[in-house]
Protein backbone atom coordinates (compact mmCIF):
# COMPACT_ATOMS: atom_id res chain seq x y z
CA UNK A 1 0.00 0.00 0.00
CA UNK A 2 2.79 2.35 0.80
CA UNK A 3 4.05 2.31 -2.74
CA UNK A 4 0.75 3.53 -4.17
CA UNK A 5 -0.47 6.27 -1.91
CA UNK A 6 -2.46 7.88 -4.73
CA UNK A 7 -5.01 5.09 -4.66
CA UNK A 8 -6.08 5.94 -1.15
CA UNK A 9 -8.93 8.27 -0.49
CA UNK A 10 -9.29 9.57 -4.01
CA UNK A 11 -12.74 10.45 -5.27
CA UNK A 12 -12.43 8.46 -8.48
CA UNK A 13 -11.46 4.89 -7.67
CA UNK A 14 -9.12 2.75 -9.71
CA UNK A 15 -5.80 4.44 -10.28
CA UNK A 16 -4.49 1.77 -12.67
CA UNK A 17 -7.42 1.71 -15.10
CA UNK A 18 -7.71 5.51 -15.16
CA UNK A 19 -4.01 5.98 -15.83
CA UNK A 20 -4.16 3.26 -18.47
CA UNK A 21 -7.15 4.90 -20.05
CA UNK A 22 -5.55 8.34 -20.02
CA UNK A 23 -2.39 7.11 -21.70
CA UNK A 24 -4.31 5.04 -24.22
CA UNK A 25 -6.64 7.88 -25.12
CA UNK A 26 -3.89 10.46 -25.39
CA UNK A 27 -1.85 8.11 -27.54
CA UNK A 28 -4.72 7.39 -29.87
CA UNK A 29 -5.98 10.93 -30.25
CA UNK A 30 -2.86 13.06 -29.86
CA UNK A 31 0.40 11.16 -29.95
CA UNK A 32 -0.31 8.79 -32.82
CA UNK A 33 -1.08 11.48 -35.43
CA UNK A 34 1.75 13.65 -34.17
CA UNK A 35 4.26 10.83 -34.32
CA UNK A 36 3.10 10.11 -37.87
CA UNK A 37 3.99 13.72 -38.60
CA UNK A 38 7.50 13.32 -37.24
CA UNK A 39 7.84 9.93 -38.90
CA UNK A 40 6.97 11.33 -42.32
CA UNK A 41 9.40 14.19 -41.80
CA UNK A 42 12.13 11.67 -41.00
CA UNK A 43 12.17 10.61 -44.66
CA UNK A 44 14.11 13.82 -45.34
CA UNK A 45 17.82 14.12 -44.69
CA UNK A 46 18.99 16.84 -42.30
CA UNK A 47 20.18 18.98 -45.18
CA UNK A 48 16.86 18.72 -46.98
CA UNK A 49 15.00 19.39 -43.77
CA UNK A 50 16.94 22.57 -43.03
CA UNK A 51 16.68 23.70 -46.65
CA UNK A 52 12.90 23.24 -46.52
CA UNK A 53 12.17 24.88 -43.19
CA UNK A 54 14.66 27.73 -43.53
CA UNK A 55 13.86 28.80 -47.09
CA UNK A 56 13.39 32.60 -47.24
CA UNK A 57 9.70 32.34 -48.09
CA UNK A 58 9.08 29.92 -45.26
CA UNK A 59 11.04 32.08 -42.83
CA UNK A 60 9.01 35.12 -43.90
CA UNK A 61 5.83 33.17 -43.24
CA UNK A 62 6.96 32.32 -39.69
CA UNK A 63 7.42 36.01 -39.02
CA UNK A 64 3.97 36.80 -40.34
CA UNK A 65 2.24 33.91 -38.60
CA UNK A 66 3.88 34.09 -35.20
CA UNK A 67 4.04 37.87 -35.19
CA UNK A 68 0.38 38.31 -36.01
CA UNK A 69 -0.63 35.55 -33.59
CA UNK A 70 1.33 37.18 -30.76
CA UNK A 71 -0.12 40.59 -31.48
CA UNK A 72 -3.63 39.20 -31.77
CA UNK A 73 -3.29 37.22 -28.54
CA UNK A 74 -1.95 40.34 -26.81
CA UNK A 75 -4.86 42.47 -27.95
CA UNK A 76 -7.25 39.72 -26.94
CA UNK A 77 -5.66 39.47 -23.50
CA UNK A 78 -6.38 43.14 -22.85
CA UNK A 79 -9.80 43.42 -24.43
CA UNK A 80 -10.89 39.92 -23.49
CA UNK A 81 -10.21 40.81 -19.88
CA UNK A 82 -12.33 43.93 -20.30
CA UNK A 83 -15.18 41.95 -21.84
CA UNK A 84 -15.03 39.34 -19.09
CA UNK A 85 -14.97 42.09 -16.44
CA UNK A 86 -18.00 43.79 -17.88
CA UNK A 87 -19.89 40.53 -18.24
CA UNK A 88 -19.21 39.51 -14.64
CA UNK A 89 -19.43 42.81 -12.80
CA UNK A 90 -22.19 44.78 -14.46
CA UNK A 91 -25.85 44.27 -15.13
CA UNK A 92 -26.55 45.01 -18.73
CA UNK A 93 -29.68 44.67 -20.80
CA UNK A 94 -29.44 41.50 -22.88
CA UNK A 95 -26.40 40.33 -20.97
CA UNK A 96 -27.05 36.65 -21.61
CA UNK A 97 -27.25 37.32 -25.31
CA UNK A 98 -23.95 39.22 -25.27
CA UNK A 99 -22.48 36.38 -23.25
CA UNK A 100 -23.55 33.96 -25.96
CA UNK A 101 -22.08 36.17 -28.70
CA UNK A 102 -18.64 35.67 -27.20
CA UNK A 103 -18.72 32.01 -28.21
CA UNK A 104 -19.68 32.65 -31.82
CA UNK A 105 -16.10 32.65 -33.16
CA UNK A 106 -15.83 29.14 -31.65
CA UNK A 107 -18.89 27.88 -33.45
CA UNK A 108 -18.59 29.57 -36.81
CA UNK A 109 -16.83 27.50 -39.49
CA UNK A 110 -13.56 29.30 -40.01
CA UNK A 111 -13.97 29.65 -43.77
CA UNK A 112 -17.28 31.43 -43.21
CA UNK A 113 -15.57 33.73 -40.76
CA UNK A 114 -12.87 34.46 -43.32
CA UNK A 115 -15.28 35.22 -46.12
CA UNK A 116 -17.37 37.40 -43.84
CA UNK A 117 -14.39 39.32 -42.53
CA UNK A 118 -12.98 39.92 -45.98
CA UNK A 119 -16.34 41.13 -47.26
CA UNK A 120 -16.61 43.55 -44.33
CA UNK A 121 -13.05 44.86 -44.62
CA UNK A 122 -12.68 44.92 -48.42
CA UNK A 123 -12.62 48.34 -50.06
CA UNK A 124 -16.33 48.03 -50.89
CA UNK A 125 -17.35 46.55 -47.52
CA UNK A 126 -18.97 48.23 -44.49
CA UNK A 127 -15.77 48.91 -42.59
CA UNK A 128 -13.41 48.84 -45.54
CA UNK A 129 -15.26 51.66 -47.27
CA UNK A 130 -14.72 53.81 -44.17
CA UNK A 131 -11.13 52.76 -43.46
CA UNK A 132 -9.59 52.67 -46.93
CA UNK A 133 -10.21 56.31 -47.84
CA UNK A 134 -8.32 57.12 -44.63
CA UNK A 135 -5.39 55.07 -45.84
CA UNK A 136 -5.95 52.01 -43.65
CA UNK A 137 -5.97 48.90 -45.79
CA UNK A 138 -7.07 45.85 -43.84
CA UNK A 139 -8.25 43.23 -46.30
CA UNK A 140 -5.50 41.59 -48.36
CA UNK A 141 -2.70 42.91 -46.14
CA UNK A 142 -0.92 41.51 -43.06
CA UNK A 143 -3.30 43.64 -41.00
CA UNK A 144 -6.10 41.42 -42.25
CA UNK A 145 -4.33 38.37 -40.84
CA UNK A 146 -4.14 40.10 -37.48
CA UNK A 147 -7.84 40.96 -37.60
CA UNK A 148 -8.83 37.38 -38.40
CA UNK A 149 -6.64 36.00 -35.62
CA UNK A 150 -8.08 38.48 -33.15
CA UNK A 151 -11.59 37.44 -34.12
CA UNK A 152 -11.04 33.72 -33.63
CA UNK A 153 -8.96 34.13 -30.46
CA UNK A 154 -11.28 36.32 -28.39
CA UNK A 155 -13.39 33.60 -26.73
CA UNK A 156 -10.33 31.85 -25.32
CA UNK A 157 -9.41 34.79 -23.11
CA UNK A 158 -12.93 35.65 -22.07
CA UNK A 159 -13.82 32.08 -21.20
CA UNK A 160 -10.73 31.44 -19.13
CA UNK A 161 -10.85 34.70 -17.19
CA UNK A 162 -14.60 34.80 -16.60
CA UNK A 163 -14.87 31.95 -14.05
CA UNK A 164 -11.95 33.31 -12.03
CA UNK A 165 -13.55 36.75 -11.92
CA UNK A 166 -16.79 35.22 -10.78
CA UNK A 167 -14.97 33.54 -7.92
CA UNK A 168 -13.43 36.79 -6.72
CA UNK A 169 -15.71 38.20 -4.10
CA UNK A 170 -16.49 41.86 -3.82
CA UNK A 171 -15.47 41.66 -0.14
CA UNK A 172 -11.83 41.47 -1.14
CA UNK A 173 -12.09 44.81 -2.86
CA UNK A 174 -14.04 46.26 0.05
CA UNK A 175 -11.38 45.04 2.45
CA UNK A 176 -8.68 46.61 0.32
CA UNK A 177 -10.59 49.85 0.21
CA UNK A 178 -11.06 49.79 3.99
CA UNK A 179 -7.33 49.39 4.43
CA UNK A 180 -6.83 52.54 2.41
CA UNK A 181 -5.93 51.22 -1.02
CA UNK A 182 -6.68 53.32 -4.05
CA UNK A 183 -8.64 51.80 -6.90
CA UNK A 184 -5.51 51.34 -8.96
CA UNK A 185 -3.68 49.73 -6.03
CA UNK A 186 -6.58 47.37 -5.46
CA UNK A 187 -6.53 46.32 -9.07
CA UNK A 188 -2.79 45.99 -9.32
CA UNK A 189 -2.05 44.36 -5.95
CA UNK A 190 -5.23 42.43 -5.21
CA UNK A 191 -7.20 41.58 -8.33
CA UNK A 192 -4.63 41.33 -11.06
CA UNK A 193 -2.39 38.71 -9.40
CA UNK A 194 -5.46 36.51 -8.99
CA UNK A 195 -6.39 36.92 -12.62
CA UNK A 196 -2.94 36.61 -14.14
CA UNK A 197 -2.71 32.80 -14.37
CA UNK A 198 -6.08 32.56 -16.13
CA UNK A 199 -5.18 35.49 -18.34
CA UNK A 200 -1.95 33.81 -19.36
CA UNK A 201 -3.78 30.59 -20.13
CA UNK A 202 -6.23 32.49 -22.30
CA UNK A 203 -3.37 34.29 -23.99
CA UNK A 204 -1.59 31.01 -24.71
CA UNK A 205 -4.72 29.37 -26.09
CA UNK A 206 -5.52 32.34 -28.31
CA UNK A 207 -1.94 32.40 -29.52
CA UNK A 208 -1.90 28.69 -30.33
CA UNK A 209 -5.18 28.95 -32.16
CA UNK A 210 -3.93 31.89 -34.19
CA UNK A 211 -0.78 30.07 -35.22
CA UNK A 212 -2.70 27.05 -36.44
CA UNK A 213 -5.51 28.97 -38.09
CA UNK A 214 -5.98 28.56 -41.83
CA UNK A 215 -9.56 28.82 -43.04
CA UNK A 216 -10.45 32.26 -41.79
CA UNK A 217 -7.15 33.82 -42.81
CA UNK A 218 -6.53 32.81 -46.41
CA UNK A 219 -9.58 34.73 -47.60
CA UNK A 220 -8.50 38.01 -46.06
CA UNK A 221 -4.70 37.67 -46.21
CA UNK A 222 -4.05 38.36 -49.88
CA UNK A 223 -1.47 35.55 -49.69
CA UNK A 224 1.38 37.47 -51.25
CA UNK A 225 4.69 35.60 -50.96
CA UNK A 226 7.14 37.18 -48.48
CA UNK A 227 4.47 39.65 -47.33
CA UNK A 228 1.20 38.09 -46.25
CA UNK A 229 1.66 34.38 -46.60
CA UNK A 230 0.96 32.37 -43.44
CA UNK A 231 2.83 29.18 -42.66
CA UNK A 232 -0.22 26.88 -42.91
CA UNK A 233 -0.69 28.12 -46.50
CA UNK A 234 2.86 27.07 -47.35
CA UNK A 235 2.10 23.65 -45.92
CA UNK A 236 -0.91 23.41 -48.22
CA UNK A 237 1.31 24.59 -51.07
CA UNK A 238 3.71 21.73 -50.41
CA UNK A 239 0.85 19.25 -50.29
CA UNK A 240 -0.44 20.58 -53.59
CA UNK A 241 2.90 19.57 -55.08
CA UNK A 242 2.60 16.12 -53.46
CA UNK A 243 5.58 17.00 -51.29
CA UNK A 244 4.31 15.29 -48.14
CA UNK A 245 7.67 15.23 -46.40
CA UNK A 246 8.24 18.94 -47.02
CA UNK A 247 4.78 19.75 -45.68
CA UNK A 248 5.28 17.75 -42.52
CA UNK A 249 8.74 19.26 -42.05
CA UNK A 250 7.27 22.77 -41.87
CA UNK A 251 4.45 21.48 -39.69
CA UNK A 252 6.95 19.94 -37.30
CA UNK A 253 8.78 23.24 -36.96
CA UNK A 254 5.50 25.04 -36.24
CA UNK A 255 4.64 22.43 -33.68
CA UNK A 256 8.00 22.86 -32.01
CA UNK A 257 7.68 26.66 -31.92
CA UNK A 258 4.19 26.48 -30.51
CA UNK A 259 5.21 23.90 -27.95
CA UNK A 260 8.07 26.10 -26.76
CA UNK A 261 5.77 29.11 -26.54
CA UNK A 262 3.20 27.17 -24.57
CA UNK A 263 5.92 25.85 -22.29
CA UNK A 264 7.18 29.38 -21.67
CA UNK A 265 3.69 30.56 -20.85
CA UNK A 266 3.25 27.62 -18.49
CA UNK A 267 6.45 28.49 -16.65
CA UNK A 268 5.37 32.10 -16.46
CA UNK A 269 2.08 30.96 -15.01
CA UNK A 270 3.80 28.89 -12.35
CA UNK A 271 6.00 31.80 -11.47
CA UNK A 272 3.08 34.18 -11.21
CA UNK A 273 1.19 31.72 -9.00
CA UNK A 274 4.09 31.49 -6.63
CA UNK A 275 4.33 35.25 -6.46
CA UNK A 276 0.63 35.63 -5.88
CA UNK A 277 0.76 33.19 -2.98
Amino acid at each position, binding site marked *: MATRPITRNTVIPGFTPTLGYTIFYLSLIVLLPLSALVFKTASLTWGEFIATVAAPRVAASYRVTFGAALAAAGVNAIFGLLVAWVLVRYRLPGKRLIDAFVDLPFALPTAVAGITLSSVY*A*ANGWLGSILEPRGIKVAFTPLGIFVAMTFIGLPFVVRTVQPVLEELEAEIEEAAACLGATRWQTFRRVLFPELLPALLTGFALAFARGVGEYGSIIFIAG*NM*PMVSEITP*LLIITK*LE*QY*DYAGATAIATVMLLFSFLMLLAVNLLQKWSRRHAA
Partner: protein
Amino acid sequence: MKPIKTFAVLTTALIAFAAPVAAYAEVNLLNVSYDPTRELYQDYNAAFAKYWKGKGGDTVTVKQSHGGSGKQARAVIDGLDADVVTLALAYDIDEIGEKAKLIPESWQKRLPHNSSPYTSTIVFLVRKGNPKKVKDWNDLVRPDVKVITPNPKTSGGARWNYLAAWGYALKQKGGSEAKAKEFVTRLFKNVPVLDSGARGSTTTFVQRGQGDVLLAWENEAFLAVNELGKDKFEIVVPSISILAEPPVTVVDKVVDRKGTRKVAEEYLKYLYTPAGQEIAAKHYYRPIDKKVAARYAKVFPKVKLFTIDDTFGGWKAAQKKHFADGGVFDQIYGPGK
Protein backbone atom coordinates in the same frame (compact mmCIF):
# COMPACT_ATOMS: atom_id res chain seq x y z
CA MET B 1 -23.26 -2.41 -16.30
CA LYS B 2 -25.10 0.44 -17.87
CA PRO B 3 -22.44 1.75 -20.29
CA ILE B 4 -21.78 -1.76 -21.57
CA LYS B 5 -25.46 -2.23 -22.31
CA THR B 6 -25.63 1.06 -24.16
CA PHE B 7 -22.61 0.06 -26.16
CA ALA B 8 -24.17 -3.28 -27.10
CA VAL B 9 -27.37 -1.58 -28.20
CA LEU B 10 -25.44 0.91 -30.31
CA THR B 11 -23.40 -1.79 -31.99
CA THR B 12 -26.47 -3.83 -32.82
CA ALA B 13 -28.14 -0.78 -34.24
CA LEU B 14 -25.13 -0.02 -36.41
CA ILE B 15 -25.01 -3.56 -37.77
CA ALA B 16 -28.74 -3.51 -38.44
CA PHE B 17 -28.36 -0.30 -40.43
CA ALA B 18 -25.37 -1.46 -42.38
CA ALA B 19 -26.63 -4.90 -43.42
CA PRO B 20 -29.45 -4.40 -45.96
CA VAL B 21 -27.59 -1.92 -48.19
CA ALA B 22 -26.01 -4.52 -50.48
CA ALA B 23 -29.30 -6.19 -51.37
CA TYR B 24 -30.28 -4.21 -54.54
CA ALA B 25 -28.93 -4.59 -58.08
CA GLU B 26 -27.75 -1.07 -58.25
CA VAL B 27 -24.42 0.31 -59.35
CA ASN B 28 -22.80 3.12 -57.49
CA LEU B 29 -20.05 5.12 -59.09
CA LEU B 30 -18.00 7.84 -57.50
CA ASN B 31 -16.77 10.60 -59.78
CA VAL B 32 -14.03 12.62 -58.14
CA SER B 33 -13.78 15.94 -59.92
CA TYR B 34 -12.68 19.53 -59.38
CA ASP B 35 -14.69 22.57 -58.39
CA PRO B 36 -16.12 24.17 -61.54
CA THR B 37 -17.58 20.93 -62.94
CA ARG B 38 -20.20 20.55 -60.22
CA GLU B 39 -23.10 21.74 -62.34
CA LEU B 40 -21.85 19.98 -65.46
CA TYR B 41 -21.77 16.55 -63.85
CA GLN B 42 -25.08 17.03 -62.08
CA ASP B 43 -26.69 17.25 -65.51
CA TYR B 44 -24.49 14.65 -67.07
CA ASN B 45 -25.04 12.02 -64.38
CA ALA B 46 -28.80 12.20 -64.78
CA ALA B 47 -28.47 11.88 -68.55
CA PHE B 48 -26.10 8.94 -68.27
CA ALA B 49 -28.28 7.06 -65.77
CA LYS B 50 -31.20 7.38 -68.19
CA TYR B 51 -29.10 6.28 -71.15
CA TRP B 52 -27.66 3.29 -69.31
CA LYS B 53 -31.05 2.14 -68.08
CA GLY B 54 -32.35 2.45 -71.65
CA LYS B 55 -29.60 0.15 -72.83
CA GLY B 56 -30.80 -2.48 -70.38
CA GLY B 57 -28.17 -1.78 -67.76
CA ASP B 58 -28.53 -1.50 -64.02
CA THR B 59 -29.68 1.56 -62.21
CA VAL B 60 -26.61 3.75 -61.93
CA THR B 61 -26.19 6.28 -59.22
CA VAL B 62 -23.19 8.51 -59.64
CA LYS B 63 -21.95 10.29 -56.58
CA GLN B 64 -19.91 13.42 -57.06
CA SER B 65 -17.05 14.79 -55.08
CA HIS B 66 -15.70 18.25 -55.81
CA GLY B 67 -12.80 20.31 -54.51
CA GLY B 68 -9.50 21.71 -55.65
CA SER B 69 -8.01 19.45 -58.31
CA GLY B 70 -4.82 18.70 -56.39
CA LYS B 71 -6.72 18.14 -53.16
CA GLN B 72 -9.00 15.68 -54.92
CA ALA B 73 -6.06 13.78 -56.40
CA ARG B 74 -4.52 13.54 -52.95
CA ALA B 75 -7.76 12.13 -51.55
CA VAL B 76 -7.71 9.41 -54.21
CA ILE B 77 -4.06 8.67 -53.47
CA ASP B 78 -4.92 8.40 -49.80
CA GLY B 79 -7.72 5.92 -50.48
CA LEU B 80 -10.89 7.71 -51.59
CA ASP B 81 -12.69 5.04 -53.64
CA ALA B 82 -13.06 6.93 -56.93
CA ASP B 83 -14.27 4.87 -59.89
CA VAL B 84 -13.49 7.72 -62.24
CA VAL B 85 -11.49 10.90 -61.85
CA THR B 86 -12.22 14.00 -63.93
CA LEU B 87 -9.61 16.56 -62.92
CA ALA B 88 -8.33 19.93 -64.02
CA LEU B 89 -4.96 18.80 -65.32
CA ALA B 90 -3.18 15.66 -66.40
CA TYR B 91 -0.44 16.21 -63.83
CA ASP B 92 -2.83 15.44 -60.98
CA ILE B 93 -3.88 12.16 -62.59
CA ASP B 94 -0.24 11.31 -63.34
CA GLU B 95 0.46 11.65 -59.64
CA ILE B 96 -2.34 9.23 -58.78
CA GLY B 97 -0.65 6.73 -61.07
CA GLU B 98 2.79 7.44 -59.72
CA LYS B 99 2.15 7.77 -56.01
CA ALA B 100 -0.56 5.17 -55.50
CA LYS B 101 -0.14 2.91 -58.55
CA LEU B 102 -3.89 2.91 -59.15
CA ILE B 103 -3.67 3.78 -62.84
CA PRO B 104 -1.20 2.65 -65.55
CA GLU B 105 1.20 5.26 -66.88
CA SER B 106 -0.38 5.15 -70.33
CA TRP B 107 -3.78 6.27 -69.07
CA GLN B 108 -3.94 9.35 -71.25
CA LYS B 109 -3.87 7.27 -74.43
CA ARG B 110 -6.97 5.27 -73.52
CA LEU B 111 -9.57 7.77 -74.66
CA PRO B 112 -9.59 10.08 -77.69
CA HIS B 113 -8.09 13.58 -77.56
CA ASN B 114 -5.66 12.96 -74.73
CA SER B 115 -8.58 11.65 -72.67
CA SER B 116 -10.08 15.13 -72.62
CA PRO B 117 -13.71 14.98 -73.78
CA TYR B 118 -14.08 18.74 -73.58
CA THR B 119 -11.61 21.58 -73.57
CA SER B 120 -11.52 25.09 -72.32
CA THR B 121 -9.23 28.07 -72.42
CA ILE B 122 -8.17 31.03 -70.37
CA VAL B 123 -9.98 34.31 -70.96
CA PHE B 124 -10.21 37.70 -69.25
CA LEU B 125 -13.16 38.84 -67.23
CA VAL B 126 -13.36 42.64 -67.02
CA ARG B 127 -15.83 45.10 -65.56
CA LYS B 128 -18.64 46.30 -67.79
CA GLY B 129 -17.53 48.68 -70.50
CA ASN B 130 -13.94 47.51 -70.09
CA PRO B 131 -12.84 50.76 -68.40
CA LYS B 132 -9.12 49.94 -68.63
CA LYS B 133 -9.45 48.95 -72.30
CA VAL B 134 -7.91 45.54 -71.81
CA LYS B 135 -7.74 43.75 -75.13
CA ASP B 136 -4.87 41.29 -75.00
CA TRP B 137 -2.18 39.83 -72.78
CA ASN B 138 0.19 42.79 -73.20
CA ASP B 139 -2.36 45.07 -71.51
CA LEU B 140 -1.99 43.00 -68.36
CA VAL B 141 1.54 44.22 -67.72
CA ARG B 142 0.59 47.90 -67.98
CA PRO B 143 1.34 49.61 -64.66
CA ASP B 144 -2.24 50.86 -64.28
CA VAL B 145 -3.88 47.43 -64.56
CA LYS B 146 -4.45 45.17 -61.59
CA VAL B 147 -4.82 41.46 -62.35
CA ILE B 148 -6.53 38.86 -60.18
CA THR B 149 -5.44 35.24 -60.43
CA PRO B 150 -5.10 32.46 -57.89
CA ASN B 151 -1.74 31.11 -56.76
CA PRO B 152 -0.33 28.57 -59.24
CA LYS B 153 1.22 26.69 -56.37
CA THR B 154 -2.15 25.88 -54.86
CA SER B 155 -4.53 26.03 -57.82
CA GLY B 156 -4.62 23.96 -60.98
CA GLY B 157 -6.57 26.67 -62.79
CA ALA B 158 -3.94 29.23 -61.92
CA ARG B 159 -1.28 27.05 -63.53
CA TRP B 160 -3.23 27.29 -66.79
CA ASN B 161 -3.37 31.10 -66.38
CA TYR B 162 0.32 31.34 -65.81
CA LEU B 163 1.26 29.07 -68.70
CA ALA B 164 -1.14 30.90 -71.03
CA ALA B 165 0.65 34.19 -70.29
CA TRP B 166 4.04 32.54 -70.71
CA GLY B 167 3.02 31.00 -74.03
CA TYR B 168 1.74 34.35 -75.30
CA ALA B 169 5.07 36.04 -74.61
CA LEU B 170 6.96 33.14 -76.11
CA LYS B 171 4.97 33.29 -79.32
CA GLN B 172 5.47 37.02 -79.94
CA LYS B 173 7.93 38.18 -82.56
CA GLY B 174 11.38 37.74 -81.10
CA GLY B 175 9.94 35.87 -78.14
CA SER B 176 12.30 33.85 -76.00
CA GLU B 177 12.30 32.04 -72.67
CA ALA B 178 14.00 35.03 -71.04
CA LYS B 179 11.43 37.46 -72.48
CA ALA B 180 8.62 35.18 -71.37
CA LYS B 181 9.99 35.11 -67.84
CA GLU B 182 10.25 38.88 -67.78
CA PHE B 183 6.69 39.20 -69.08
CA VAL B 184 5.24 36.85 -66.50
CA THR B 185 7.23 38.55 -63.75
CA ARG B 186 5.79 41.92 -64.75
CA LEU B 187 2.32 40.44 -64.91
CA PHE B 188 2.54 39.01 -61.40
CA LYS B 189 3.78 42.41 -60.13
CA ASN B 190 0.29 43.60 -61.04
CA VAL B 191 -1.41 40.94 -58.93
CA PRO B 192 -2.55 42.39 -55.59
CA VAL B 193 -4.17 39.25 -54.16
CA LEU B 194 -3.25 35.61 -54.71
CA ASP B 195 -6.15 33.44 -53.64
CA SER B 196 -5.61 29.76 -53.04
CA GLY B 197 -8.25 28.63 -55.54
CA ALA B 198 -10.12 29.72 -58.65
CA ARG B 199 -13.46 30.29 -56.92
CA GLY B 200 -11.70 32.38 -54.31
CA SER B 201 -10.27 34.61 -57.01
CA THR B 202 -13.64 34.96 -58.70
CA THR B 203 -15.07 36.10 -55.38
CA THR B 204 -12.22 38.54 -54.81
CA PHE B 205 -12.78 40.08 -58.24
CA VAL B 206 -16.56 39.99 -58.37
CA GLN B 207 -17.71 40.53 -54.78
CA ARG B 208 -14.81 42.41 -53.23
CA GLY B 209 -14.26 44.63 -56.26
CA GLN B 210 -10.51 44.01 -56.36
CA GLY B 211 -8.57 44.34 -59.60
CA ASP B 212 -9.40 45.23 -63.19
CA VAL B 213 -9.00 41.85 -64.87
CA LEU B 214 -9.73 38.34 -63.68
CA LEU B 215 -7.85 35.54 -65.40
CA ALA B 216 -10.30 32.66 -65.53
CA TRP B 217 -11.34 29.48 -67.20
CA GLU B 218 -13.74 30.31 -69.98
CA ASN B 219 -16.53 28.31 -68.33
CA GLU B 220 -15.96 30.07 -64.99
CA ALA B 221 -16.07 33.43 -66.75
CA PHE B 222 -19.39 32.56 -68.41
CA LEU B 223 -20.75 31.36 -65.10
CA ALA B 224 -19.71 34.58 -63.38
CA VAL B 225 -21.33 36.70 -66.09
CA ASN B 226 -24.55 34.69 -66.10
CA GLU B 227 -24.89 34.36 -62.34
CA LEU B 228 -23.77 37.81 -61.33
CA GLY B 229 -25.12 40.01 -64.02
CA LYS B 230 -24.42 40.74 -67.68
CA ASP B 231 -24.68 44.39 -66.72
CA LYS B 232 -21.60 44.16 -64.54
CA PHE B 233 -18.99 42.12 -66.36
CA GLU B 234 -17.89 41.17 -69.82
CA ILE B 235 -15.56 38.60 -71.27
CA VAL B 236 -12.50 39.57 -73.28
CA VAL B 237 -10.96 36.84 -75.40
CA PRO B 238 -7.24 37.39 -76.00
CA SER B 239 -5.63 36.91 -79.43
CA ILE B 240 -3.97 33.71 -78.34
CA SER B 241 -4.42 31.47 -75.34
CA ILE B 242 -3.77 28.00 -74.03
CA LEU B 243 -5.81 24.92 -74.85
CA ALA B 244 -6.87 23.68 -71.45
CA GLU B 245 -7.58 19.97 -71.54
CA PRO B 246 -9.20 18.69 -68.36
CA PRO B 247 -8.70 14.92 -68.60
CA VAL B 248 -10.76 11.96 -67.39
CA THR B 249 -9.95 8.35 -66.64
CA VAL B 250 -11.17 5.30 -64.77
CA VAL B 251 -9.23 4.32 -61.68
CA ASP B 252 -8.26 0.78 -62.59
CA LYS B 253 -7.49 -0.69 -59.18
CA VAL B 254 -10.77 0.62 -57.78
CA VAL B 255 -13.11 -0.44 -60.58
CA ASP B 256 -11.55 -3.90 -60.70
CA ARG B 257 -11.99 -4.37 -56.99
CA LYS B 258 -15.56 -3.06 -57.02
CA GLY B 259 -16.48 -4.79 -60.27
CA THR B 260 -17.61 -1.51 -61.83
CA ARG B 261 -15.16 -1.32 -64.73
CA LYS B 262 -17.71 -1.75 -67.50
CA VAL B 263 -20.10 0.95 -66.28
CA ALA B 264 -17.27 3.28 -65.39
CA GLU B 265 -15.77 3.00 -68.86
CA GLU B 266 -19.15 3.54 -70.50
CA TYR B 267 -19.68 6.52 -68.24
CA LEU B 268 -16.60 8.21 -69.66
CA LYS B 269 -17.22 7.15 -73.27
CA TYR B 270 -20.68 8.67 -73.14
CA LEU B 271 -18.98 12.04 -72.63
CA TYR B 272 -17.74 11.77 -76.22
CA THR B 273 -21.18 11.10 -77.74
CA PRO B 274 -23.17 14.00 -79.22
CA ALA B 275 -25.47 13.90 -76.19
CA GLY B 276 -22.53 14.15 -73.79
CA GLN B 277 -20.89 16.86 -75.87
CA GLU B 278 -24.09 18.86 -75.87
CA ILE B 279 -24.18 18.84 -72.08
CA ALA B 280 -20.54 19.94 -71.90
CA ALA B 281 -21.20 22.78 -74.34
CA LYS B 282 -24.24 23.92 -72.35
CA HIS B 283 -21.94 24.28 -69.36
CA TYR B 284 -19.50 26.33 -71.42
CA TYR B 285 -16.88 23.70 -71.98
CA ARG B 286 -15.73 23.67 -75.59
CA PRO B 287 -16.95 20.43 -77.21
CA ILE B 288 -14.50 18.46 -79.34
CA ASP B 289 -17.24 16.99 -81.52
CA LYS B 290 -17.20 19.10 -84.72
CA LYS B 291 -20.97 19.08 -85.26
CA VAL B 292 -21.77 20.10 -81.72
CA ALA B 293 -19.01 22.68 -81.81
CA ALA B 294 -20.47 24.16 -84.99
CA ARG B 295 -23.80 24.58 -83.25
CA TYR B 296 -22.16 26.47 -80.40
CA ALA B 297 -19.81 28.51 -82.61
CA LYS B 298 -21.53 31.73 -81.55
CA VAL B 299 -20.89 31.05 -77.88
CA PHE B 300 -17.21 30.25 -78.21
CA PRO B 301 -15.29 32.87 -80.20
CA LYS B 302 -12.42 31.63 -82.31
CA VAL B 303 -9.08 32.02 -80.65
CA LYS B 304 -5.63 30.74 -81.51
CA LEU B 305 -4.80 28.00 -79.04
CA PHE B 306 -1.51 26.36 -78.21
CA THR B 307 -1.17 23.10 -76.27
CA ILE B 308 0.83 22.29 -73.23
CA ASP B 309 2.52 19.38 -74.98
CA ASP B 310 3.82 21.45 -77.90
CA THR B 311 4.82 24.55 -75.99
CA PHE B 312 5.96 23.15 -72.65
CA GLY B 313 6.72 19.49 -73.37
CA GLY B 314 3.86 18.17 -71.26
CA TRP B 315 2.66 18.72 -67.72
CA LYS B 316 5.47 17.00 -65.94
CA ALA B 317 8.10 19.19 -67.53
CA ALA B 318 6.02 22.35 -67.04
CA GLN B 319 5.36 21.52 -63.41
CA LYS B 320 9.01 20.87 -62.70
CA LYS B 321 10.31 23.97 -64.43
CA HIS B 322 7.72 26.49 -63.30
CA PHE B 323 5.89 25.43 -60.17
CA ALA B 324 8.17 23.12 -58.20
CA ASP B 325 10.02 24.63 -55.25
CA GLY B 326 12.74 26.89 -56.54
CA GLY B 327 11.10 26.94 -59.98
CA VAL B 328 10.40 30.01 -62.07
CA PHE B 329 7.32 31.00 -60.08
CA ASP B 330 9.29 30.96 -56.83
CA GLN B 331 12.01 33.03 -58.47
CA ILE B 332 9.43 35.67 -59.40
CA TYR B 333 8.55 36.04 -55.75
CA GLY B 334 12.07 35.46 -54.45
CA PRO B 335 13.38 37.69 -51.65
CA GLY B 336 14.20 41.22 -52.66
CA LYS B 337 12.26 41.25 -55.90
